């Protein structure tokens, strides 16, 4: 084993890989649990009631077009409303806790698979922890609304599924089809998934142009369209069968436009940057160390571990495009909501994996003493940033959990169901959209 490898495993030399995996899994579950508690017990229960009531009404008789959420596709209501038909007890927002957690846990698992393919199991575990932490912080600590039952929580799984398919399936036909289906599912949940779709198309066309295989690129794009149509058609047929299709299209496009603006771009607030600081730190480490390889004054390529067959370079380009599209959407949003940042977590953390891998690779090239010094400063700073990012989430969860009252939840949900639907729309239109 090289000196650097021994250094990197110094702190883990007495723990088996299984113990390390269990430790990371435990940390992820703690973060997930704290995030769900903080989101469910948020004092401003706005969006969670909107979406849960819409889901309830969609799956019960007597629903009208006005019961749909005006500015979102009905996908989330279709995916979650069945819980109110299956689970016993009084209907409340809390009925959707299991299915929301399933979607999020599935997203963590898919993220791990993506990261493992790119960077190996050990790094994938760490990056998945970063992803879970940042995702839950942006979700639970928003001041504009509560984070429970938000679209973004259900978006992560199909979007990451599309990314995984894009990175693992070789055949452009099957890759395009699977990506299209996954993106289509994401689009019927929230239209902001269009950013990822744009990233797929642009990065694929550029990749095929560079390899002069335009045909496969066009096939891929074509299959994406077919996959999207295959996902959207059932939902459209459902809406058409109830006579809601036209009304939903009108409100959807009108309300979507009202969310966006041509931005005078402003710097994000510090509390919106903090959750991603561990990932940004890894990126900074990787960039700095990639330019300081032995004997080189500058490297244009990202320094990677051995056995890079070019797929990582393509993944890096795709992830970069994905980040750019998500940042563009974020900058275009009129409302400065923190939960919009959930969309950029996955591309940022995945890109930070390149920094982590580059850092590890560079450390193995250093002598023992230097590598040890580099390693301890990097690790200590990463741990400090992680702890600082996690603390607000954990304290919010602890302070909010005591405010949960099941009887109040039942009563409020019943009141919302009984309230005339136009009144709900008027309340939302009267408030800030």
């Amino acid at each position: 084993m090289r000196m650097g490898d021994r250094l990197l495993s110094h702190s883990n030399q007495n723990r088996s890989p299984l113990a390390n995996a269990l430790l990371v899994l435990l940390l992820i579950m703690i973060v997930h649990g704290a995030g769900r508690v903080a989101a469910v017990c948020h004092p401003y229960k706005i969006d969670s009631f909107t979406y849960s009531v819409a889901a309830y009404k969609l799956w019960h008789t007597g629903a009208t077009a006005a019961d749909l959420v005006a500015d979102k596709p009905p996908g989330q209501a279709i995916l979650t409303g069945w819980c109110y038909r299956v689970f016993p007890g009084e209907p409340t927002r809390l009925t959707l806790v299991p299915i929301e957690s399933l979607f999020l846990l599935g997203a963590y698992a898919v993220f791990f698979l993506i990261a493992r393919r790119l960077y190996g199991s050990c790094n994938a575990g760490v990056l998945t922890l970063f992803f879970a932490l940042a995702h839950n912080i942006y979700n639970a600590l928003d001041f504009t609304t509560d984070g429970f039952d938000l679209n973004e929580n259900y978006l992560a799984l199909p979007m990451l599924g599309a990314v995984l398919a894009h990175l693992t399936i070789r055949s452009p036909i099957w890759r395009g089809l699977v990506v299209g289906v996954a993106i289509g599912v994401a689009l019927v949940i929230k239209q902001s998934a269009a950013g990822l779709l744009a990233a797929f198309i642009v990065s694929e066309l550029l990749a095929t142009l560079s390899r002069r295989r335009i045909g496969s690129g066009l096939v891929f794009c074509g299959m994406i369209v077919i996959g999207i149509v295959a996902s959207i058609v059932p939902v459209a047929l459902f809406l058409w069968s109830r006579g809601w299709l036209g009304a939903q299209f009108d409100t959807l496009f009108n309300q979507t436009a009202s969310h966006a603006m041509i931005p005078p771009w402003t710097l994000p607030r510090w509390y919106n940057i903090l959750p991603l600081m561990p990932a940004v730190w890894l990126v900074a480490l990787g960039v700095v160390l990639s330019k300081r390889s032995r004997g080189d004054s500058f490297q244009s390529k990202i320094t990677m571990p051995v056995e890079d067959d070019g797929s990582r370079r393509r993944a890096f380009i795709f992830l970069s495009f994905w980040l750019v599209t998500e940042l563009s959407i974020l900058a275009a949003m009129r409302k400065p909501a923190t939960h919009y940042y959930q969309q950029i977590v996955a591309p940022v953390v995945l890109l930070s994996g390149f920094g982590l891998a580059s850092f590890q690779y560079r450390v193995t090239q250093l002598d023992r003493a230097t590598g040890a010094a580099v390693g301890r400063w990097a690790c200590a700073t990463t741990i400090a940033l992680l702890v600082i990012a996690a603390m607000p989430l954990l304290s919010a969860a602890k302070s909010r959990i005591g405010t949960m009252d099941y009887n109040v939840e039942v009563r409020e949900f019943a009141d919302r169901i009984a309230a005339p639907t136009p009144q709900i729309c008027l309340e939302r239109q009267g408030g800030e959209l």
Partner: protein
Amino acid sequence: MTRAQLVVTVAVTGLLAAVGALASAYDVDRGFDQLLWVVRACAACAVIVFVLSNDSAAGRDKIARRPRLASALLVAILFPYGVESVAQSIGSDLAIIATVVSVALMRRGGAVRFIAGGLVAGLACASEASAIVWPLGYAYSVVSCGDTRRMRGVLLICGAVGVAIGWGTRGVFAPSDPVFGGLAAVHRDLMILMPLILLGMVGLAKARSEVLETRADYSMQISWTAVALACLCLVVIGVPLDVRLCALPLFWWIPTAVSELGAITIGSQRADSSLRMVGFLSVAMTACLMIPGVLRLLDGPLIAVYLLG
């Protein structure tokens, strides 16, 4: 560092910390608490002396004067402001002073100092239950060294008795209420002290890689720090312990880290560019982490102006 230099350093940094302590000793409803301020300033001075007592390096690698001064300055700047969760409680500061004294007595050895150290540790635990971290750390160091002496549990017993006395005599020693302000206040204190904890972790990691860890006193310090790190993890997940008492052993390692940071950025180790860049990045990130504490630097002088005016 000569004795005169040590005294001047403690005096200057202690004065800086005392001014910083003014902010937490003033309450809008109760006014300025002079006793609390004095005790809090003394606790800060005790921690500065504790930090300056770091002798983890020896021979050619002896920690120079400037890293020690820089470490004392960092502690003086940040330490007085990490008190939000124990703002109006004198017990926490008494416990810090007692713990520093107990550690000094235990390090010097001898039967009399051992017993005195145990009694002082008990006083610390009576003032603030979180001070049990020190007896736990000592017991862990003894166990990990395979010490079979019967006296190894004395410190832990003293600490446990102290905790019992403190809980039983609320109003006499008035154990601090760490839930003042809730867990958010505890976490804010941890955030203020995070740069010091980061440097302490690096110093500890460097010390563990050196042969000196086999010395008994360093083994005690390392074990105490290990227990403290575990307690800080508990603080992060929601157990409302006293952050300053939990982080105290980490402060001892700050000069080691600052010395290394100076060497790799502007000193003898700057030959390796990778290490130098990582050093500069770490300096930048540590400086960013200091922002929450630095933003409060004016609080103490403003209170001083108000009181003098």
